[in-house]
Every structure is written in structure tokens, then in C-alpha cells.
């Protein structure tokens, strides 16, 4: 990946990845920081990253690891981390969204990650298995559990979009 390719890759995928990392971590500032740092590393390792598709997955995995290691360093468990995440200052529209975020935060981190990869990044179960380093069966179980955990909140919070 040369400078020009990196520039277009960065511009096109940065916001999307911040969105995905936010959904995975529940902390907007962390998501932004982790993705930013992951892109710096992506440039350093650009020699090992070939296609743009592969690059996006690379940055996402790296950003996830960065976020997780920060949590660990802060000596919080992954679940606690999420619960303890900073209040969403820019929580934006409506309490319904807040409730959904709160529900999402209660889902164990790896389940949440699988949900985001499947529903937001449009990856297949096999691709998620490859990205997260577990077997497809495990991915399916995580998806099922994660869905079961947040679906009730979806129903309860089915509210018109406020914007």
C-alpha cells in the first residue's frame, strides 16, 4: 500500500471504523483513540497489508486489541470496563438510544464484538471466526447469546428516531 492508497483508505474507512469500535466498546473517545492509533500502526506495517479489504479488517482487529489492552491496563475486567465506560456525553438523541447502549454494554465484550461484526460490518460467520480467532460454532453461540440479551431492550425501546 503506497501513500496514495493509504490516504484514500484512511479517508474512506476511518469514520466507519470509529462507529464499529464505538458499538463494540461503548466509549466514543476510546473508539476514536484506538482507531487513530491503529491507523498509525497500519502505516508502519503497510508492507504487510495488501488489499484494502484486508487492511480494514487489520485496522479493526488492531483497534480492538488496543482498546482491550487499555482496559486491562486500567485493571478492569472487560465487562466491568464496559459498564464503567465514561458516560456518553454526546449521547445524542433520546433516552431510548441510551437504553439500547446500556443494554449493549451489559453484553459480554466478545459477544458484542461478534454482533457488531455481523450486523454492522456485514461479515459472515466464517469471516468473524477468522477475525476473532475462534471457531464458527463459537461465533454462532456468541451471536445467539448476544442477540438474546439485547433483543428485549430493542422491543422496549422501539421508538421513533428522533432526528
Amino acid at each position, binding site marked *: 500500500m503506497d501513500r496514495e492508497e493509504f490516504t484514500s483508505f484512511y479517508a474512506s474507512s476511518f469514520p466507519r471504523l*470509529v462507529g464499529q469500535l464505538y*458499538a463494540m466498546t461503548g466509549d466514543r473517545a476510546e*473508539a476514536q483513540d484506538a482507531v487513530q492509533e491503529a491507523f498509525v500502526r497500519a502505516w508502519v*506495517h503497510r*508492507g504487510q497489508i495488501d488489499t484494502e479489504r484486508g487492511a480494514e479488517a487489520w485496522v479493526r482487529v488492531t483497534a480492538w486489541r488496543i482498546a482491550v489492552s487499555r482496559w486491562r491496563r486500567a485493571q478492569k475486567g472487560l465487562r466491568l470496563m464496559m459498564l464503567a465506560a465514561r458516560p456518553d456525553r454526546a449521547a445524542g438523541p433520546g433516552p431510548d438510544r441510551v437504553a439500547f447502549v446500556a443494554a449493549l454494554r451489559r453484553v459480554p465484550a466478545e459477544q458484542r464484538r461478534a454482533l457488531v461484526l455481523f450486523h454492522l460490518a456485514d461479515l459472515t460467520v466464517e469471516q468473524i471466526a477468522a477475525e476473532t480467532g475462534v471457531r464458527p460454532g463459537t461465533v454462532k453461540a456468541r451471536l445467539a447469546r448476544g*442477540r438474546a440479551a439485547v433483543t428485549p431492550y*430493542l422491543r422496549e425501546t*422501539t421508538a421513533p428516531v428522533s432526528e
Partner: protein
Amino acid sequence: MTDLNEELRRLADEAAREARPLAVADVIRQGDRRQRRAITRRYLGRAPGPVTGARPGRRWRRWVAPLAAAGAVVAVVAGTAAVSGAIRGSRTAAGAGLAHGTTAYVVNSAKDTVIPIRTATNTALPPIKVGIQPMAIAITPDGKTAYVANEVPGSVTPIRTATNTALPPIKTGSTPVAIAITPDGKTAYVIGGGDSGTVTPIRTATNTALPRIKVGRLPMAIAITPDGKTAYVANSNSTMVTPIRTATNTALPPIKTGHGPAAIAITPDGKTAYVANGASGTVTPIRTATNTALPPIKTGGDPLAIAITPDGRTAYVVNQDSDTVTPIRTATNTALPPIKTGRLPQAIAISPDGKTAYVGNNTAGTVTPIRIATNTALPPIKTGGNPFEIAITPNGKTAYVALVTAGVIPIRTATNTALPGLKIGYSSAIAITP
């Protein structure tokens, strides 16, 4: 009714809209700095033996041992840190040292550890925990202490090599990126500080930090003359190299170089320091007697590593953007025709006998040996990873190549064949005891 897809998407879109990415130029600059930092550290590492031809490689920074050691072996440094180039005090000593075998110290900046490897058997010993994000390592000329620079929170962890135990960290300036140790082993210089560049001298006898010295923007590399009198610091976000008088630990007036000085190497006779100007594609020789810059020598694109042969005749400059190495004849300061390497060459080390330069090609995943007598590239050696740093044992038998994520692979220099790799994870710097 909203479903999970939509709800997640809405959530993510909000965060995406508010994302405030840095300018891409800043991302690239930060990445480049890190790369250079890593590379510069390597340089430090080697201590060349004095003229005898110890190892050419990146000795510069650490000239540490050179004078002292007679022909001693240089420690190779591979990775980030400056290596310790400890040279042995004397040849006899060196011989004795070999009997015990040397130890290569590999920095794993992902796990915040340093892993010792017995070079005689290629076996890894238990990891030693250091500070957060260790990036550079250097070993004293007597081989007794390895200093590891931790980026967070800005400290150096001494490791007692006899027992492989970490001592309490010593506070330095912020984000230390490279270390060089004087040939007498008394002082370790730690550079860092980002755009408010600092040098922290550490008295090795007591492991205490002395007052910091201010230098220029984004120091990336440091090299000490063989007589130990002057340390040169390359301020990579500028066009300046800052000399430091080690007797008083004071900065002398900066010397004008090309843009983005990222690496320094000093000839074994101590007369000339060669500075690679990454952004200019040139090398600036500096006459150390007067601290004056000579006319720049054109190299390839983005030179970021230099190694000088033990006989001091040739400086090899690694051009990461041109996939070449430019030999420079030091007698005349002229560039010879470039030698083709693999893609994205970033590391170089020269064997102690001065016959072969090993160039690590990051993207190509290979090491290109260069026959120094003829300046010809030999067939590349596959590494199974992305070479980042190279260090050669003092006896010259083995070159250790640090692979970005895949551990370390030893290369038998007699046959230029790869031995089984050590899967010890992310390897960002290497130093070998004298």
C-alpha cells in the same frame, strides 16, 4: 420497529459522524517516526570494535566500546534500542566471554517484556517484565547490564544480565526512543521527548539520572564517538544534529544537515559521523574534529539506516523507499552504484569480519546478504516474517533477525541459511552481549 441491525447502525453512524481523524499526513509522519525510531535504535546497538574489523554495522551510536575494545567484538544490535555495543575490553576477555556464550536480548513491545536467548543453543529463557511499550535496548560494554527504554511513562529499566532480573526503573524524559552507552560504560544516554527533545544521561554505576539536556525536535538517533567525548543526536523533525560534550553534558551548537536526520554512524577512527537525512535522500558527513558538515552525498529514497564496515572504508546506507543500499566510499565521500535489495529494506548489520552486510527487507520478508568485497547482493534468505532489526553475535556465526510479529529467526552466516525460528511474538529490538 427497529431491529438490531438498524439500531446498531444508527449508533455507529452517530459516532462515525463525530469522528475527528487526524490529517493523514500526521498519521504518516507519526508512523514514519516510529519506524525510524526503531531503526535508529538498532544502530545504537553496535559497538564496533576498533578498527579491527569488528562489526560494521550500526555501530555508530554506540560506539561504545570501540576504542576500548581492541578489536573486540561488537555487540550487534538489532532492534530498537541502541544496542549495547559492548565490546569487550580486550581480546582475551572476549575469548573468555565466548566460552560462556553470549545472550541476545529481544524486546517484545507488545507484551512489555524482554526475552533472553542463549545464542549457543538458540533457546529462549523466561521473559523479563519491563515497563510499558519498551522500544529500545542497549548493553554496557562489560555486558553486565542491559538498559531498556520504556515509552510509557518514560523510563529505563536496567536488567542485570548475570541473573536476568530487572532493577527498579529510572525516570527519563518522555517517550524515550534510543539509548547509547559511552565506550567506558559509565554513562548511558537516553534520547526522547518528541518535539521537545531531551537527552537524559544515566550514571550506570548508581543507575541515577543526571539533569536532562535539551536538544532539537524529535530526536531519533544517537551515536557516540569511539573516544567517548562527543555524542551526536539526530533531531529528525528538523535539519539539525546536536553534538553533546559528554565531559560536561552540555549541548554544543547544532550542525546543519539535510531534512529529517534519522540515523547516525561514526567511523571506527572517530573522524567522521555520517548522518542519513530521510526526507532529503542524502547523507551528510560531519567532521567530528570541528563539528562541521561536509557537502551532502546523494543516496536513494528515504535512507533510514547506516552501517560502517569494521575497517571504516565503506558506509552502507539503506534506502527504504528505493529498495536499495548505497555504499559510500568514506575516503572520498562518494556514492557507489546502489545495490538492489528486497522490498522495504529497513535494517542492516555487518559481520564482525567485515565481509558481509545483512539487509533486512521488511515487506519482502527476506534478508539480502551483500558481499562487501564486490558490493554484490547474494541470493535472499527467506525469514518467514517481516524483518525489522538484525544483530550479529560477536563471534560472527549467527545473525539474529527480529521479525515484526513472528519472533526471531537465526541465520547461520557461514552458509547464509536460516535456522528454525523462535516464536517469541512481536520483536522490536535486539541487543547481544559482548
